[in-house]
């Protein structure tokens, strides 16, 4: 890995390729349980990739990413509820709807910085959570059933099909975030993260770049949400719950925020830890919580520093 976590196909990049190749072969084991877990990991990794654009490269600590994830799922569910199961339409609605939502909420949230940004993103996501439980047409607390989407002959209700579609979209997400970060837009975003005042004096308006990053991240999270709705055959308020936002942040930082492949490793390790711990005890959070605190303590540069090793700088938490 090189400066700013770019994949130079060394270290992390190679490990990611090996991991993805392993995932591609995994269904050969013919274990339904394993394919389900795998699909869940791909979806969460995709959502974490989108959060990485904000936290890792934009320096924007959003604690409301469940909003866009859940909105994507609900877009699919609402269309399904009214009888539209065509994949292109449902996924376009999920991506477009989440992007629009991110535009609106981002425009308001980005007016403040630091702890206020964290609180406001959390509050807006909670608003959607309450809204989903209060609206009867959305099924209230129970949520909505989803008939899985079809893309021509590809039916996402088929376990293996959904597995490979999710894996494919995860790979696409990795490539997109890699190109985006290295693009003209991406380096302005990173520049604003590193030195906002300097970027202003060069002629950049930080608000525009941050808002656009917010919209792109929202769209990607919406895509992940659409997949989740197909996996669960359901969209429920749980997908909008603040704890999802927290989990996504934990995965991001465990894997290494501000690194392209970090979200993949974060999602995989978080799910593995969760599966292993919950094999021993139903109260796995009793151990994971303090572990998280310890990890933050042990690494002076934050959790990202612990895992990312040689990167010349780490993401700042928006102080």
């Amino acid at each position, binding site marked *: 890995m090189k*400066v*700013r976590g770019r994949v130079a196909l060394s270290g992390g990049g190679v490990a990611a390729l090996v991991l993805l190749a392993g995932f591609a072969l995994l269904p050969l084991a013919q274990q339904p349980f394993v394919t389900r877990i795998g699909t869940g990991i791909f979806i969460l990794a995709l959502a974490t990739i989108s959060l990485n654009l904000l936290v890792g490269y934009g320096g924007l600590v959003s604690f409301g990413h469940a909003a866009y994830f859940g909105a994507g799922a609900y877009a699919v569910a609402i269309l399904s509820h009214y009888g539209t199961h065509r994949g292109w339409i449902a996924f376009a609605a999920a991506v477009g709807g989440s992007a629009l939502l991110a535009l609106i909420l981002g425009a308001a949230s980005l007016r403040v910085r630091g702890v206020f940004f964290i609180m406001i993103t959390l509050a807006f996501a909670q608003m959607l959570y309450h809204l989903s439980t209060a609206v009867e047409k959305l099924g209230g607390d129970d949520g909505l059933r989803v008939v899985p989407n079809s893309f021509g002959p590809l039916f996402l209700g088929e376990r293996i099909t959904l597995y490979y579609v999710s894996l494919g979209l995860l790979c696409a997400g990795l490539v997109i975030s890699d*190109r*985006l970060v*290295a*693009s*003209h*837009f*991406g*380096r*302005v975003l*990173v*520049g604003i993260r*590193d*030195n906002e*005042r*300097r*970027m*202003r*004096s*060069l*002629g*950049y*308006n930080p608000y525009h*770049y941050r808002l*656009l990053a917010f919209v792109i991240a929202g769209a990607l999270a919406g895509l992940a949400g659409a997949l989740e709705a197909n996996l669960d055959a359901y969209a429920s308020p749980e997908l909008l719950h603040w704890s999802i936002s927290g989990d996504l942040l934990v995965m991001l930082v465990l894997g290494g925020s501000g690194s392209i492949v970090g979200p993949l490793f974060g999602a995989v390790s978080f799910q593995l830890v969760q599966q292993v711990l919950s094999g021993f005890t139903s109260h796995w959070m009793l151990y994971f919580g303090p572990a998280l605190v310890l990890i933050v303590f042990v690494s002076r540069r934050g959790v990202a520093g612990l895992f990312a090793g040689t990167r*010349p*700088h780490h993401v700042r938490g928006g102080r």
Partner: protein
Amino acid sequence: MLRVRGLSKRFGGFVSNADIDLDIEPGEIHAVIGPNGAGKTTLVNVIAGDLRADAGEILLDGHDVTTLPTHRRARAGMGRMFQITSVLPSFTALENVAIAAQARGRSFRFWHRANADRDLNQRAEMSLARVGLSHQASALAGEMGHGEHRQLEIAMALVAEPCLLLLDEPTSGMSGADSVALIDLLRTISETTAILLVEHDMDVVFSLADRITVLASGRRIACGTPPEVRADALVQQVYLGAGATAAPAMAEHA
């Protein structure tokens, strides 16, 4: 090039700039000097747009920029070098300058690698060459020395071809040899760009400036060519009266 009229800036009850007029002609190096707390840095910040003026107007190349935000003023042709070094530490020197060049073009491009943008890189290389930093093009800015940072900042400002360059103490913390090189560089730059220079070092001021504006307690007390300012009774009184470090330097040039 720059025309400032009746500019005032207060912080609570403290008046930092009061009714200041300032004119900078094309190709001119205009120095602003004054004792500590005279309001020099505030003036630069108000002109650059980091602070909003309480009263007065600022015209850049005939256009009113008084209420424009910083980034719009930068796009209108204001280049900037901060008092405290301000670069992008996680980018290479070349990338720093390329990002500065990119500010004038389209940045909403999402797919092609910006590093492979030949046009931007070429302009950045030329600018680096101009400040004598070509050999460090691929060094990380965060790992460069202080003198090199100052050069890099000038390269970043120059690449956008500004019509006015705001320099806040460009030679501070520089070794003697480095500042001599920098002074030479500024002199060449001034052939194409007007420069507003805030500086403590009187050697630099008197060897570079075409005209000097003197501030004291937020007010303009003098403005003129170096010999005029040197001869000004009020200026001498302010500097000698304050017992400031600048007084000997002032006398030396008198």
